[in-house]
C-alpha cells in the first residue's frame, strides 16, 4: 500500500446523509473478480441525473468527497471503497462513518476523515460558491484546509492513531500480523479440543 501523508485535490460536495453502500455501488456491479474497474458503478443510480454533482464539469477530477453523516452504512462490500478509489477519490470527509466502511478504507488506503458537522456545512458552502476549489487534507497534522482569506476553513479531523500510523507508513496488515506468528501458534495450542472444525482428519 502507498504511504499517505498529505493530499490536495478538488473537493466534491455530496449533500446527502446516510449514503449507504448500495448507493455507493449497487450489487449488480460487484461481479468482477479483480480490484479495479469499479468506477462505472460508483453512485450509478444518481449518475443518470444530469444535475448530480459528479456530472458537473466544475468538479471533474475531484479527489476529496465531502459527504453528510452516516456515510458507508450497510454492506461490508470493500468494493464501495475500491469504486471511490478507482474513480479517483483519495479522501472522504464526513461527520460520521459506518464502522465497516471506515475499517475497509483504512485497509485499502482511502482516508476517511471524520470532522465536525459544521465543518462539512462550511466546506459545502465553499464548494457551492467556488466550484472546483481545492481541499488539503494533512494526515500528519490531522487537519483539513480550504479557501482563502476571511472564508478560509481550517479544522482538525479524527482518525484513530493506529490507522493513521499504518497509512503514514504505508504498512500491510498481514505483514505486521505475521510478525506475531509465534503468538498465534501458542494461542492455537491452547484452544479447547471441542471447538468445531470444518474438515475432519
Amino acid at each position, binding site marked *: 500500500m502507498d504511504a499517505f501523508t498529505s493530499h490536495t485535490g478538488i473537493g466534491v460536495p455530496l449533500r*446527502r*446523509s*446516510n449514503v*449507504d453502500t*448500495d*448507493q455507493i455501488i*449497487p*450489487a*449488480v456491479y*460487484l*461481479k*468482477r*473478480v*479483480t*480490484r479495479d474497474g469499479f468506477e462505472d458503478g460508483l453512485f450509478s*443510480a444518481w449518475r443518470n441525473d444530469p444535475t448530480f454533482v459528479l456530472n458537473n464539469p466544475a468538479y471533474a477530477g475531484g479527489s476529496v468527497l465531502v459527504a*453528510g*453523516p*452516516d456515510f458507508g*452504512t*450497510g*454492506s*461490508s*462490500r*470493500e*468494493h464501495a*471503497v475500491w469504486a471511490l478509489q478507482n474513480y479517483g477519490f483519495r479522501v472522504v470527509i464526513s461527520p*460520521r462513518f*459506518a*464502522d*465497516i466502511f471506515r*475499517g*475497509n478504507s483504512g*485497509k*485499502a488506503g482511502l482516508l476517511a476523515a471524520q470532522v465536525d458537522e459544521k465543518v462539512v456545512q462550511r466546506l459545502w458552502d465553499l464548494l457551492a460558491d467556488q466550484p472546483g476549489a481545492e481541499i488539503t487534507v494533512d494526515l500528519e497534522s490531522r487537519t483539513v484546509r480550504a479557501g482563502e482569506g476571511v472564508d478560509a476553513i481550517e479544522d482538525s479531523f479524527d482518525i*484513530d*492513531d*493506529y490507522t493513521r500510523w499504518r497509512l503514514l507508513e504505508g504498512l500491510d*496488515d*498481514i505483514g*505486521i*500480523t*505475521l510478525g*506475531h*506468528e509465534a*503468538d*498465534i501458534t501458542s*494461542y*492455537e495450542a491452547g*484452544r*479447547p*479440543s*471441542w*471447538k*468445531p*472444525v*470444518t*474438515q475432519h482428519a
Partner: protein
Amino acid sequence: MGRTLSEKVWDEHVVRSRQGEPDLLFIDLHLIHEVTSPQAFDGLRLAGRAVRRPDLTLATEDHNVPTIDWDKPIADPVSRTQVDTLRRNADEFGVRLHPLGDIEQGIVHVVGPQLGLTQPGMTIVCGDSHTSTHGAFGAIAFGIGTSEVEHVLATQTLMQAKPKTMAVTINGSLPAGVTAKDMVLTLIAHTGTGGGQGYIVEYRGPAIEELSMEGRMTVCNMSIEWGAKAGLIAPDQTTFDYIEGRPEAPKGADWDAAVEHWKSLRTDDDAVFDEEVVLDASVMTPFVTWGTNPGQGVPLGAAVPFPDDFDDAQDKVAAEKALEYMGLTAGTPMREVKVDTVFVGSCTNGRIEDLRLAAEIIQGRKVDPDTRLLVVPGSVRVRLQAQDEGLDVIFKEAGAEWRGAGCSMCLGMNPDTLEPGERSASTSNRNFEGRQGKGGRTHLVSIPVAAATAIRGTLSSPADLEPLAQPVTVGSN
C-alpha cells in the same frame, strides 16, 4: 468488577494485546462466499501465502446464484465467472465448499447454524455484514471487508479495537402475531440507523429469552442495520437444544465439556454496560418500513409520516427524499399501500420456522391476482424440510413461486429483481434505494405481514384476512 458476555468472549480470543494498538483476535470460524472473496484469494496468491487454517474455513455459493434452473450452467457469464473463481480457489487452497447443487448449499448465515458449526463463545467472521446473525448463539460475529478476509485467510486472526458495550433489554412478552422481526424493526426506528455505532450489543430480558433460536437469529441479523458492530444473546437451554445432534456439534464427553463452558457465558450481575436501551415487548405491534433505510418504520396501523413530523433537519430532508423515491404520499394509511411483489426469504427470515408460519397463513387462500409471491428458502436443507412437510404444495396451490436456495431478491444480484417503480413487501433486512433492483421500492415486513399482504395485495396483517371456513394447522413437527 464483573464482565459482560461480549467482554468474556472477546478476552478468550485475544492473541496479543498492546496499549495503543488494536487487539489481535483469533477467529474460530471464517465463512466465505463468491462475491467478497476473489480479490482476497488473489492477494494470497500474489504474496505466495497459504490459508493458515482451512479446517476453520467454510465456503458456499449464495449471493448471485440463480433460484431457478440451478442444475444448468449459470446463464449470466459474469456471475458464472465469480462462482467458478470460488470453486477454483476453494480447490487450490483446500477450503471446504458447498456449491450450487450440494445438499448443504445455501445462504452462508443459514448454513453455519444448520450444520452446528455456529456455537456459543466463538468468534465468527464473513465478508458479509449480516454475519451478526450468528450472535444469536452467544458468539461475537461480524462482517468484514475483503482486505480483512485476506487477513483472516492468511493468519486466522484479525486486528480489532475493542468496541464499547450496550445492553438492549426487552421486557414483557410479544403479543400474539407479533414476531422477532417486528421487535427489531421497532428497535431500529427507536434508535435510528446510527444508534449502535461503535457498540457490541447484548440483547436480553424476558422477551428475548422467550424467542426461539430462529427468532433470535432474526434479531441479531439486523444488528448491523442500526450500526452495531455485532449483536449477541447469552446462550441458554434453547441454544443448547438447537445445537445438540447437529452434524458438527460436539459429541459425548466433548458435548459435556462444551456445555459446561457455554453455561459460564453470561453477563455478570455486577458488570456495567457503556449504554443501555430498554423497550417493552408487550406494546409492540406489526411494524413496517415506509422509507429507504431500516430506521424509517412505523406500526402497520399507522400512516406514512410527514417530513415535518421530524425534529431533526437531516431527518426531514431524508424523509422528503425517501417519500419521493418510494412514491408515497404523507398521511396515507400504511394498510392502503398496494404491493406488486412479496418476497419471503433471506438470512433474516428464510429458515424453516419462517416458511411454516407463512404457509400456515397462506394455506387455503389464494395470492392476490395482481401480486406476485416469491418464496425462496434460505438453504437446500430448508427447502427439503419444507417439501417433506408439504409447505411447497401450500405455496404453489396459493399461486406462489417456489424457488431454490440463495440470497435472491434480498439484494437482486441474480435475475430475481424488482423493475423500476415496482413495490415489494420483503422479509429481508434492507430497504435501501435500488437494493432489490434499480428503482425498486422495498417495504421491510415480518413473515405474517408478508403472507397476509400477498393475499390482500396491500400491506396487511393476518388479522385483516377473511376467516377461513375451516381452520388449518401446518407442519408435522
